[in-house]
């Protein structure tokens, strides 16, 4: 499932959206973000964990996230990410765009009613 090319491409485009959505619920570090995406999609989204980190760093560079080093529960320190106001704004934009996109895709893909009478 995770190797489906269409899903992989869609996931790549939606990765920033998914990361922001997960972090909206609280501060997390990279591994936790990957786990939450996997769990909350019931395994449908199993992102290459490698693609997650460039997304996190890009969002941080853009000001959508802040990052701080802090010791984790298991001892070694981890880089914790927190969504910013700018990140929440970007997330709202992603949601609107996604709704518009999926709506349009659904409308195109929905079976057209048979023409009547002819």
């Amino acid at each position, binding site marked *: 499932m995770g190797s489906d090319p269409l899903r992989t491409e869609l996931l790549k485009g939606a990765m920033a959206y998914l990361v922001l959505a997960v972090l909206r619920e609280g501060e997390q*570090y*990279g*591994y936790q973000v990957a786990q939450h995406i996997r769990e909350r999609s019931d395994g449908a989204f199993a992102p*290459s*964990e*490698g*693609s997650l*980190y*460039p*997304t996190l*760093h*890009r969002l941080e*560079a*853009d000001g959508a996230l802040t990052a701080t*080093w802090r010791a*984790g529960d*298991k001892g*070694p*320190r*981890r*880089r914790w990410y927190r969504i910013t106001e700018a990140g929440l704004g970007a997330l709202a934009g992603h949601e609107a765009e996604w709704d518009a996109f999926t709506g349009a895709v659904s409308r195109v893909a929905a079976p057209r009613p048979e023409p009547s009478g002819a």
Partner: protein
Amino acid sequence: MPEPTDRDAWLAHVAASLDLPGDMAADVLEELRGHLDDASAAWRDAGIDPVDADRRAVRGLGDPGALGRDLGRARRRGRFLLAAVGGAVRGTVVFGIWAWLVLWLVSALVGVAGFLIASTILHAIGSSTSSYLGGPLGSLMTVGITLAWFAWLGRILPARVATSARRSVRGVKVALGVTGMIVGTVALWSFVGTDMDPVLALGLPLGPVAFLVAAVRAPDDPSLRLPARPAVTLAFGALAVVIAVVGALATTTPSQDGSWEADLSAFGVDPGSYPIFAATDYSIGWGGSSLASAGDGRAVLAEAATLTIGDEAQAAAFERQFPVLQLELRTASIVDGHLLIGTRPLAVASSPMSVQTEVQLDVPVLRTPLDVTTLAVAIAPDGTRVILGGPDGPFSTPRWHGTLMAWWFGA
């Protein structure tokens, strides 16, 4: 030495692809290492053996080269070129000024020590050091400081530029070295005008080359401090050069404080040979004692010779016998208390004789300054020369002032 695990090899591969400054690369690698720890622990919790758990964790992060490049790009968001130029300019201004001051201070201390030692030696052999500091000694010090400054900057700047541009030192040092050498060469050759001499003309162009060599060999995290052993070696080396130069000069340039005699018979006759000089109330004056640069590649003799004759009648009689007053600039040196004067004048100016006659010499600036003297000569129609004044000095011609381009190519 233990074999690297998959995890070590994978992280090393990421590190090689990151192209980020050291501290940023370390952050990224620590984050990925933490991820591998967590992922490996999760696989172990699921019953996988530790070695396989590590391999699965590494596989989960994918291609290390692609991840390293993606992470590097993600961290370098923004204008790389602008950031690199900003880092280079900021580093050059801040560290350049600091290094220039430190180097001059160190050199001054070494120079003072050398000067004191040399002065003692020279005093013992009856010479003085008064005219040496502005000559080859000063030029040697300037070249040394310039080379050290360029080399130090070349060693420091790559790390600063890398940090600003969010690149690794490895990724910027060759480009920065070549750019710095070109910019430094253009600036030195075209815009930096100074009192030039052969030592500076040969030594200064090596500065940008020193920058290139130092930049290419620059460490990832250079210290701002001079390494102690090279600094001490450099200081004592400079001291040795100072003493050697002053000592060498002492054997060829005598003290100008002592008295000297001059045999002028080759240049003209004494006024006492002509009765008109005894019958004329005249005096000759000199306005100064040094040459000054006119700023256009020429020098003006600041001191003009002025012949003043008592009255019109005397002047008329004087003018009939000696219609021309000539001022001559000639090389001069003192050897064993004798002023030796060059047989061919470097420059000549003349003026018709009158009650008050002033003659001023314009001479070209010489690339190698010479000790010179002046003679004021009254010239008769038959070519007889009577020496009215001089020799004065000797004193040095002004140093050639201009850019390297002008020195080497006359531009």
